[in-house]
């Protein structure tokens, strides 16, 4: 049952460790050009786009090495390997799978080089969970598509140079998944208006995006016209174990434990309170459960079995933890939790907690809500009838 790493994999792990050690020392982190330097170095290593084809600047790596890389980086508390997150997470992979040669040449290296940001125009005011019913309209006119409609909740729309956009080109299909067309749209095209939306935590990361007769050249069609849904659900051979995510959660737990040790709550140290201890222990246990679930997913993938809806399990745990960590911190801090950016009395960076407490919808709602995850498990894994 134990899987030992091969000597090559062990060597790779050592290499990543040594690299992280060398480049992530406290002094290095403080130096002025640290992030830019870091990005350049990991890029030279071809660790950005680790499993992308080498022809477009990727690393051509395998799943196991990818896990090792992500795990080691997460453990070392490393900055990301690239800043173009959506580009790295799905725009790039979608282009690799569905893009034309020109699109690959044009976009992939820029994503790997963190040249600019991509945003994702999927959700609409009327269609969130029920995304496949989207209505943003695209009409073919000669060598161009003309777009009219609206997107919403588009994260970092105002900072992005490009958008991956889902439109509807056919309104008369029997199945709502047909007739959807995926376009790559330059954000400074005439007719696009971005209106940032302020969220309850005070940030304005997402925005409404309006399209009025926006013209997009046909060469920016990704995949076939009317087959855009496939582009959004394509399954490249990704590592989906979430092992690096777990390393992040472990650190969040450690910070919360630290807070518990330094905070007095109802007259005693929070970490001495049985109810708090139990909640911390439960969070610890769920994180460990996620890690081990992830390893089971990973072994499935390594054996070439398709991985599908199982990942909804960890998504549900993740949603629970997102809310639980914030609320636990809030409870421990008592009235002081209400001061945003208050003086730090605990020795822990206390003023981050109140902000964190309001950030959970990002994780809980943003990636498909818990109810949608439950539907997926019930219908796809347990075979219960659709509602």
């Amino acid at each position, binding site marked *: 049952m134990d899987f030992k790493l091969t000597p090559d994999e062990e060597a790779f792990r050592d290499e990543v460790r040594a690299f992280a050690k060398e480049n992530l020392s406290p002094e290095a982190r403080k130096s002025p050009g640290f992030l*830019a330097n870091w990005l350049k170095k990991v890029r030279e290593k071809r660790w950005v786009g680790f499993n992308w084809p080498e022809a477009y600047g990727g690393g051509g790596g395998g799943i196991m090495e990818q896990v090792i890389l992500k795990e080691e980086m997460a453990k070392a508390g490393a900055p990301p390997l690239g800043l173009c997150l959506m580009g790295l*997470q799905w725009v790039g992979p979608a282009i690799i799978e569905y893009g034309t040669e020109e699109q690959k040449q044009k976009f992939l290296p820029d994503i790997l080089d963190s040249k600019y940001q991509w945003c994702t125009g999927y959700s609409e005011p009327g269609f969130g969970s029920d995304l496949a019913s989207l209505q943003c309209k695209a009409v073919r006119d000669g060598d161009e598509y003309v777009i009219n409609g609206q997107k919403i909740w588009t994260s*970092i729309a105002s900072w992005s*140079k490009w958008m991956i956009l889902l439109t509807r080109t056919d309104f008369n299909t029997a199945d709502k998944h047909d007739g959807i067309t995926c376009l790559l749209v330059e954000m400074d095209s005439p007719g696009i208006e971005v209106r940032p939306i302020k969220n309850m935590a005070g940030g304005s990361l997402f925005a409404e995006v309006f399209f009025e007769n926006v013209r997009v050249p046909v060469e920016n069609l990704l995949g076939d016209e009317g087959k855009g849904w496939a582009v959004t659900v394509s399954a*490249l051979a990704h590592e989906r174990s979430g092992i690096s995510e777990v390393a992040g959660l472990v650190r969040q737990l450690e910070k919360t434990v630290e807070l518990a040790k330094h905070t007095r709550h109802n007259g005693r140290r929070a970490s001495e309170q049985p109810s708090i*201890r139990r909640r*911390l222990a439960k969070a*610890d246990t769920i994180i460990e459960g996620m890690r081990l679930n992830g390893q089971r997913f990973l072994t499935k993938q390594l054996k070439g079995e398709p991985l599908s809806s199982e*990942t909804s399990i960890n998504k549900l745990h993740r949603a629970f933890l997102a809310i639980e960590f914030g609320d636990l911190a809030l409870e421990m801090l008592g009235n002081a939790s209400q001061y945003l950016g208050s003086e730090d009395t605990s020795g822990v960076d206390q003023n981050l907690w109140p902000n964190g407490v309001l950030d959970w919808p990002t994780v809980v709602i943003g990636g498909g*809500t818990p109810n949608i995850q439950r539907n997926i498990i019930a219908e796809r894994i347990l075979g219960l009838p659709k509602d």
Partner: protein
Amino acid sequence: MVSHHPSVNLALHLTLHESLRFINLLDGIFLTPSEACYYNRQASLRLRAAPRAASCRTTKEVSLVDLSLSPAEAAFQQEFSTWLKANLPESQRAASLQGLSEEEGLKARRDWERTLGAGGWLGVSWPKEYGGRGATAMEQVIYLEELLAAGAPNAVDALGRGLVGPTIIDLGSDEQKQRFLPSLADGTAIGTLALLEDSDLLGPDGIALTGAEEGGGYRLTGAKRFVHDAGVATLFIVPFRAGGDIVFAVVQSSTEGVGSRSHHTMDETKRMGDLTLDNVLVTPDDVLAGAGDGASALARLLDLAAVAVTAEMIGAMDRAREITTQYAKDRIQFGAPIGKYQGVKHPLAEMYVDVETSRSLLYYAAWCVQEKPQDLPLATARAKAYASEAFTRIGIDGVQLHGAIGFTAEYDIQLYLKRSKWALPAFGDAEFHYERVASLGGY
């Protein structure tokens, strides 16, 4: 790296702290795929941001473990489940043993035991030289899960043959192994663990029974409580205090001064009772001298027992989930299978999440038994804590989602509810094990 676009410049000109926070936020947005939506495939290449606080401990070393079944394990599972299908008669299923007197129940269990013995499925974890199969801890887990999933009775429950024999194998002398193991292996003896006392406290603190030394052996007077199968067991593993340590003895029901009493239990197939000791002589031959440091041996035994119980729980939980899922597909109300309604399907999805997560935690604990004993206490505590809470919910939801028929003695689902009630306190409840997680984690 040359950058022309404002967004990258923006990111690069933020302080590291700010840009990490920015990335962190972005990252959170697209965490895991929902297949209904666009997130379907993108969960990969996930980049985590650095910690914001420098004051935390360094992240623990985590090992990658292949938690899928090896070909040998899969073959073992296949062999046993096929055997069970062919050999477990309806009349011997746990469900059919309800309402029997203890004697009738015992007889039925004996019958089942003989069937298992004839098939070579008794004492699977024991070394081959003692008539076992030399199964690994992982295979034992599979064995228990399969037994439970098949609805087999507890003739060979985890606490009897699964732990008593191995304890003797671990701690006993050759002479003791010769003396005790054959009768345990062929089912003529029934072994059990007599660990708890009035305090119902696990561990050395719960052991007040003290041995008075006599001729190299001991005299014992006192009682053990919550002993599984106390009424029918013929051989008890009894830890007691002596000379500042915990000493383990094998006490046989035939010895003078040994008495036992069985109680009716909520889960009728999980009988428990008391062992009473009235000036019972423990000869030096009955002391399991290999224990060395008795407190550590006790701690390990308790962990092994908790792992075994958790394995039983997961077999039962999964079966309860399966039965209830099937019922939700079959039962029609308002013109549709009730499983169409989210009030029904969502709790079923949660059951699946809980079963699979419990299973992952359990597999890792079972793996630790042999491969990483230093991690066993924490791994066991997590598995038993999580499964205890999960099974409690599943037991109740299982019955509730059946409607009134779930309340009948005829339907199997109630057996699993009762089993969940038995399992919660067995070898430490959620409270107990979460507290262990907390203390082992250093907080």
